[in-house]
């Protein structure tokens, strides 16, 4: 798959890649634009674009608020798709869509894939769509060559991990801990064990997200994971210090 290849190639040069996340339309598309520019200029390797949904069940308070305010400000799925087309055209790194299944479902799942292909999106992260419910989705992902990013959790058994690996493409998103986005994670012995279980279950690259917020976290992950995912941290940073703070922050992670 092209996404996996990209990650592997990039990893030849870097010990760990960075994936960042933002909620489209929050606080505005203009700020999104500035933030993405700074991310790319400071060496981010992949960017997750979250299309806001009114019921972001798996997200914590920070991203929940971003979802809601974006929708309240009038962000539509169409706006998100247009913006995504703009940034994929402007920057040469992979962009992924993260959203909840209802957004695809209401759009029409196949139409959504077609559109994503047209825009140049490389993968989808849909946290409320387990493979049991995603047969059609996975099939279309294959057909349209968009990586369906599946999720491992610390609660996943080895067997479950292997099963998920059979459906996943691109990379595996390893949730660092129980819970929702936006809380601190303890990177301890249990975590190391979890990561080695992940490794054993799949050959795909591993991204680790949930609670990664500083250079120490990233350093800790280096060697265990292929991608460190920075989510809530940048949203908070922008809320507090504006878009301009993102560049230096990203630069400081390496």
């Amino acid at each position, binding site marked *: 798959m092209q996404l996996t290849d990209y990650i592997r190639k990039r990893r030849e040069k870097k010990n760990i890649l960075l994936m960042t996340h933002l909620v489209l339309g929050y606080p505005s598309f203009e700020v999104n634009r500035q933030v993405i520019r700074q991310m790319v200029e400071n060496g981010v390797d992949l960017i997750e674009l979250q299309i806001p949904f009114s019921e972001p069940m798996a997200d914590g308070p920070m991203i929940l608020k971003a979802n*809601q305010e974006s929708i309240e400000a009038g962000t539509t799925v169409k706006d998100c798709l247009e913006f995504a087309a703009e940034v994929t055209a402007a920057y040469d790194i992979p962009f992924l869509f993260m959203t909840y*299944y209802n*957004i695809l479902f209401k759009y029409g799942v196949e139409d959504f894939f077609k559109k994503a292909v047209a825009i140049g999106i490389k993968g989808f992260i849909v946290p409320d769509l387990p493979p*049991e*419910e995603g047969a059609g989705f996975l099939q279309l992902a294959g057909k349209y060559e968009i990586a369906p990013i599946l999720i491992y959790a610390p609660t*996943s058994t080895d067997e479950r991990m292997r099963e998920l690996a059979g459906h996943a493409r691109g990379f595996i998103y390893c949730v660092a801990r129980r819970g929702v986005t936006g809380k601190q994670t303890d990177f301890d012995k249990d975590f190391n064990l979890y990561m080695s279980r992940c490794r054993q279950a799949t050959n795909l690259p591993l991204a680790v997200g949930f609670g990664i917020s500083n250079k120490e976290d990233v350093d800790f992950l280096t060697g265990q994971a292929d991608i460190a995912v920075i989510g809530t941290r940048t949203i908070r940073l922008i809320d507090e210090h504006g878009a301009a703070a993102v560049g230096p922050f990203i630069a400081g992670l390496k």
Partner: protein
Amino acid sequence: MTTKGYYGNWGGAFIPEVLHETFKQLNLAFEQAKGDPTFWQEYKELMSTYSCRPTPLTCADNLSDHFGGGRIYIKREDLNHTGAHKANNVMGQGLLVKRMGKKRVIAETGAGQHGVATATMAAKFGLACTIYMGEEDVMRQRPNVFWMEKMGATVVPVTSGSKTLKDAINEAFRDWVSSMDDTHYVMGTVCGPHPFPEMVAWFQSIIGLEARKQIINGFGKLPARVYACVGGGSNAMGIFQGFMDDKDVELVGVEAGGHGLESGEHAARLAGIDSSAGVAQGYKTMFLQNDDGQMRDTHSVAAGLDYVGVSPILTDLWEKGRVRFESATDKEVMAALDLTMKKEGIIPALESSHAFVQAFKEAGDLATDQALIINMSGRGDKDIFTIAHAFNDPSWKEFIRKKGEEYATD
């Protein structure tokens, strides 16, 4: 890939991966309980000693005479311990929690009845308990909040989204994805991911099993129609299941018409035209949502009906034509409540009053040798602030004003 947990095109289990094992365990526990006849026995025993089952079926003679058509029977879920049918589901899940060995329960609540029932069950079973409740509902149902807290539960007001039931469900899931090891999520209605719809429907089926026997005993034959209000759909499913195979019994679900279907301010998912198929809160059903799939604000005077989704089982029955759906406006609800209090000395919850509205509209169409059953899902005591406000009761207002002043100087 399995179609387990589907009802026709509806249902499923759209859950975050982190809950995969939790659901596996829950499914297993539930399947075992269903297969174990002593479980149902234990459940019935609990409901007849801790709550008041079987609840009576009351013949409403005055209302029947008033409308001059079919005999009106009322299934009295209000007489359950904690005042609503919610107790049935909660006590059943409590027994499951015992079997699973978990130590804590969480729940969402709209009207607060499910929260009170869960807090009650937690007290009885010695479990820790956290209840998520939309901030708007906290205001509407303050007495219930007070009782939950007094029974030892923590009530968390949910300030996100529309601050009502759906947001409380989201928050409960957010709790559960971190706490699942020792915590069970007591879903309050026949919604959410499989196995919840099936499980809650199973526990609530006790209503219909009783009602069918009672109407045959009391009236000599089956009713022509059965009416139930539909929030998530648990009380409706509860009573409908008793008559599902009786093809001549018409089943009528009544949704919240709020300020009217044309106003956009309602919660009619199946009776209106504002909903469409969607996937949220872990399951697929007809949601009140916009073209992008964003959930819409809903409105009802009844906190327990103010919900964007509806049971996938009911959506299937609606699609197949087995259940007819209607809606009742806030105004109609107050009038039906008033009439029921004055004619029968019975105070239905605002939710339940929706079922009364539709039954009243149609009672006159039935022959006098026909009967209808209204499922009275709960009692109206909890709604005193809303009802007194809606009736604009001057002495109540004066009372509250004085109490408020007393507390102002504290």
